[in-house]
């Protein structure tokens, strides 16, 4: 079964699975500079890593999205040719036309999936896949508070690949007394998950993982009443209509999400993750600081050099200052 790799939370894996193909929400690793030359100055290391890692998946189809310039343009940096697909995720979201464009893109993706060897799903198969993945995400949400942030993030990687929330993970719950922070920003590379450990080592806990690879990237629960008759609209509502992100225009959904998440989880500090050359999250860093009024630190992940010690020191200072 051919693998279809993507990085964006806006690409429904159930849509890929319903076409009889294997979805893989790829969380890449930092490029190994001993074997992979830097593409160019100014290239986002996450986009570069995704393009490289997905090309290494033998014969896989690769879905890029227009959610940021690096990803939009990275499709041209691969040799995947017809195995690559650029999905236009609209930046605007408040109009019917934007939602309809998203649905049209899902259908267009479907046409490409068939060309990749998939088959057009009938209503029953589509409905079954939607229910399966929706149920897995519901399990994930229910288990969140019982798991450490890192364990949860790794479980999401598993869920996004298999459609099943793993049962065999260590569900060690963090100490509730630890300083509650929100992790806010774009996606983490797989070998950047040390950040979760560093936060806990500093005496804090990730009360809200609002990174793209964390719970923020989960589609909203489906409206199961409409699942059978309006599956495309249900998908569009849960993904396009509800996943908050910095690139959306306006990006008010992000701040609504953060506001309710901060209140619900008792967040008292913010760890902002951003990358050199990620303008979208870089610009939001200042706004998040102003908006939340909480102690904030920025962790700058550029893919070069080891920032762990510096980050740990900053995190310890954050916790100390808040005491």
């Amino acid at each position: 079964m051919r693998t279809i790799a993507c990085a964006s939370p806006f690409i429904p894996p159930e849509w890929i699975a319903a076409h009889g193909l294997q979805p893989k929400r790829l969380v890449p690793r930092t490029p190994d500079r001993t074997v992979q030359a830097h593409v160019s100055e100014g290239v986002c290391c996450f986009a570069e890593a995704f393009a490289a890692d997905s090309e290494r998946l033998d014969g896989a189809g690769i879905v890029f999205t227009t959610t940021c310039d690096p990803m939009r343009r990275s499709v041209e940096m691969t040799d995947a040719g017809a195995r690559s697909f650029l999905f236009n995720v609209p930046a605007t979201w408040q109009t019917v036309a934007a939602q309809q464009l998203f649905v049209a893109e899902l259908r267009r993706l479907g046409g490409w999936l068939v060309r990749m060897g998939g088959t057009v799903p009938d209503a029953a198969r589509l409905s079954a896949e939607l229910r399966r993945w929706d149920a897995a995400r519901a399990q994930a949400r229910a288990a969140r508070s019982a798991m450490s942030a890192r364990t949860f993030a790794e479980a999401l990687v598993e869920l996004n690949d298999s459609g099943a929330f793993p049962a065999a993970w260590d569900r060690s719950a963090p100490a509730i007394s630890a300083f509650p922070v929100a992790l806010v920003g774009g996606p983490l590379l797989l070998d950047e998950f040390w950040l979760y450990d560093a936060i806990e080592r500093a005496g804090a806990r990730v009360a809200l993982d609002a990174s793209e690879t964390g719970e923020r990237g989960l589609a909203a629960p489906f409206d199961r009443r409409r699942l059978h008759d309006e599956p495309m609209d249900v998908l569009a509502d849960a993904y396009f209509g509800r996943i908050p992100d910095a690139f959306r225009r306006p990006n008010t959904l992000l701040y609504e999400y953060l506001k309710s998440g901060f209140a619900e989880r008792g967040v008292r500090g913010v760890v902002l993750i951003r990358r050199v050359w990620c303008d979208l999250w870089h610009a939001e860093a200042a706004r998040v600081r102003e908006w939340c009024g909480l102690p904030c630190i920025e962790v700058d992940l550029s893919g070069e050099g080891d920032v762990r010690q510096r980050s740990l020191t900053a995190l310890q200072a954050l916790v100390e200052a808040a005491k």
Partner: protein
Amino acid sequence: MTTRLTPLTLAQWDARYEELKRGGLSEPSYGGRLSRHLEDGDLRLPKLRYDPSVAALRLWNFLLSEEDRLAQARASGRKIVGAMKDLGTVPVMAYSLPNVTAFYPDGAWWIPCVMELSAGVFRAADACGLDESFCPVRAMLGAFVTQAHFPIPDLLTCSVGATCDDFSAIAQRLNGLGYPILWWEIPHRRAPDPGEKSVVLPGGFVASTAQVAFVRSELERVRRALEELAGVPLDDARLADGIRMANEARRRLAELRRCVYHSDPCPLPALEMLVAEMLIIHFCSDRGETLSVYADLLAEVEARRKAGVGLAEGAVRVFWVNPVADLQVMNLLEDCGGRLCGTEYLFCHAVDEIPEDVEPLDALARAALADPMVGSSADRAQRICRDAEAGRAEAVIVSRIPGASHCAYEGYAIREAVARQLGLPVIELEVPPVSDSMRPALRTRIEALMETARNRRAQ
């Protein structure tokens, strides 16, 4: 027999101006000595060199008086539209309405250059969290914060989607500071899928009719907003008139480009051509006057061509990609023995004519989708190759805009296409808003390119 054209310094232009006045020079209301703009803080002016014609004087005064023009528009009760990012479509719509002036606040990106960082717009942007890792268009945010450069528009529009992240992020920050923005979507222009109905856009790119229809629906939202602002309908008849006027300006610019870029010796310097091209995106806040400025430049260039007046003969023909953040670099090109033979300043879609044989909003949608920045870098590279070949280019310079998200990716595509299809030498140069400290390095690289190009002639 040719006569060498000698650009003037600002001080030399003052002397010439006095001479012209004594000779009975007639000027528009915004005319005057160029050096008077120094009082507005335009400190870069003494470091530039200028074409000595009356047409160029008019061009510069027109450009440098835009802030006054916008202030007058506000004072006289005209509605002001700040169109952001699309570079060529929304102003065509806005100027179709009576009593509306449109401009691109994006143009504030030149404030740091022209005022040599004295305006404080970068400092204001820094204070909002937009540091120098962003494109110099962050000066636009600074201009809104300081409110010292243009009246705050009555309506702000911004195209988003297949647009550069810098601008999108900066505009969102502006929105976050309390400025309402009408966001409209421009999707990534993709190759039509097998069997999908398609249309050839102005300039030659191809798009699916579905994408054109979508952009048309977005421009319909913009139309409604403009109507509400102006208090009058923006019907198809008005739009068609607006398109006709825009096309007249585009035809004049196209003719100017053809006359200048395809002539030898070059009859108008690179700096004046850059400014002339920039006028087309929003007519420098006066559509009618833009037509007159172009007419004057055309007349001057025609006269020079007949008389054999121009820059150094035999200068290396350079195709220039992307506008420079520091205007002085266009003088530097000529100092190094080069001359322009063609350009792609991010808005070739504002230079191509808008179709007049289809329904107006459909025509504008096609024009918007023809933006070279909303499609692939490969598409843009093809357009560059085509135009460079038409201009008989001997070298290509890709001017990188510091911090601009697209520059990291498209340079490779452009270099590769130019090398493969045209076999021309290409360099990428990073040009900051004030390039004085980098001038030796820029000069070395441009001179090396010129030498490479001249050696290739000999082969």
